[in-house]
């Protein structure tokens, strides 16, 4: 059994093996967020201070998700799982699989896929995003994402660019549902040097230091089952400049989304994402397209 499989099972086992009596659904609908592409609970692109699943104080809950993003030239598949205990701690795992489209063949690497495993840990520090409706105090959480990239045939290129294949993101998120208005706001600050979220490694020869990137989300609750919103995620752009000049410049990410939770076991999120330029040296147009994610909670 590979360490990947072992870790993938951990988050699920955490929720499943402890027995049905603990896996309850104490949170209100949609207040566990959805699964972000890095595996942590929050929006689609950004981790929030919510602890994921429908488990609340004294409860254990889990989620599993699949996500697919398709832009003009690239595609990303993500699958993962998370477990949350006591509305305090969240463990998550996500495996990303990125299809490099025309870039692979252009580099003499047909069928090139960039992969990444992300292990996440989030701890809620204080605050109650939903019920503290008489104060501006948000729910605040700290998180880390341990990322291991597998660039396949691109590994020598990343080495030459000074990018490493392992990296850790650190973040703090503040989330609040303005209950009277039915609007949720999240602000995240992420210390990172991940290139394209880590798919192109971490750091580069010109800049190998951490920088703090802001990420914001806003969501309107239309009813108990439906939310619409938007996200914006700034990116560190560590491979610009590189030996390829501005050829590996990266842009900020953004999306608009609609999330539907018919019950506490299932949610579906449809979004339109703008991932900006990805390897503009070889693919000049901005990458935009649909994002679809399904999450089961138990």
């Amino acid at each position: 059994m590979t360490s990947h499989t072992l870790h993938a099972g951990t988050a699920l086992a955490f929720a499943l093996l402890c027995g049905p009596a603990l896996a309850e659904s104490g949170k209100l609908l949609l207040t566990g967020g959805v699964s972000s592409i890095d595996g942590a609970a929050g929006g689609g692109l950004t981790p929030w201070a919510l602890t994921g699943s429908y488990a609340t104080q004294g409860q254990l809950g889990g989620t599993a998700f699949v996500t697919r993003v398709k832009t003009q030239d690239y595609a990303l598949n993500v699958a993962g799982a998370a477990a949350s205990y006591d509305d305090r701690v969240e463990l998550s795992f996500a495996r990303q699989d990125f299809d490099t489209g025309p870039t692979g063949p252009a580099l003499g690497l047909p069928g090139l896929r960039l992969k990444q495993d992300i292990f996440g840990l989030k701890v809620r520090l204080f605050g109650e995003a939903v019920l503290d409706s008489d104060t501006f105090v948000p729910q605040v959480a700290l998180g880390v994402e341990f990322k291991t990239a597998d660039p396949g045939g691109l590994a020598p290129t990343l080495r030459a660019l000074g990018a490493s294949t392992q990296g850790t993101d650190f973040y703090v998120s503040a989330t609040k549902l303005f209950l009277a208005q039915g609007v949720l706001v999240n602000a995240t600050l992420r210390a990172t040097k991940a290139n394209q979220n880590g798919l192109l490694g971490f750091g580069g020869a010109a800049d190998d230091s951490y920088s703090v990137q802001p990420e914001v989300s806003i969501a309107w609750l239309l009813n108990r089952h439906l939310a619409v919103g938007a996200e914006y995620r700034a990116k560190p752009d560590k491979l610009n400049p590189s030996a390829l000049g501005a050829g590996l410049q990266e842009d900020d990410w953004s999306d608009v989304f609609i999330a539907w939770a018919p019950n506490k076991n299932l949610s579906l999120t449809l979004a339109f994402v703008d991932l900006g330029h990805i390897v503009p040296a070889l693919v000049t147009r901005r990458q935009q397209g649909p994002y679809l994610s399904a999450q089961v909670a138990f």
Partner: protein
Amino acid sequence: MIRFLATLLLAAGAALLHGPAEAQASDASLYQAFGEKAGLAVLMDRFVETLAVDERTKVFFANADKPRLKQQLTDQLCMLAGGPCVYTGAKMRGQHRGLEIARSDFNALVEVLQDSMDAQGIAFSTQNRMLARLAPMHREIITRE
């Protein structure tokens, strides 16, 4: 285009946020939206009856004095909604002491209240305005964390 749209939505959201809970004193619009005292009485009747049979909450309400509870809740929500009522019951913390109420129990009650408001045809945004005035009570009601 999408970047512009996202920025626009964020700006609109910021403009909407004029405070966590609305000023209650001079605004009786919420009271009217709930059908004033008569409407609240019907709602609390449905609410308490449902709490007494719902699997998650009935353990707390099985032995409650339901008529009294309905009347007190009607007065309390009337007052919170800006209506001309005075709540004469005991404070929340005293009323709930010793009941070992957990967060999940409180949220189950919120869901029963949402279901009751749905059944009465109260708009989602109106429901949230009322819930925003009730939610802070969780600090005095939840005794088992």
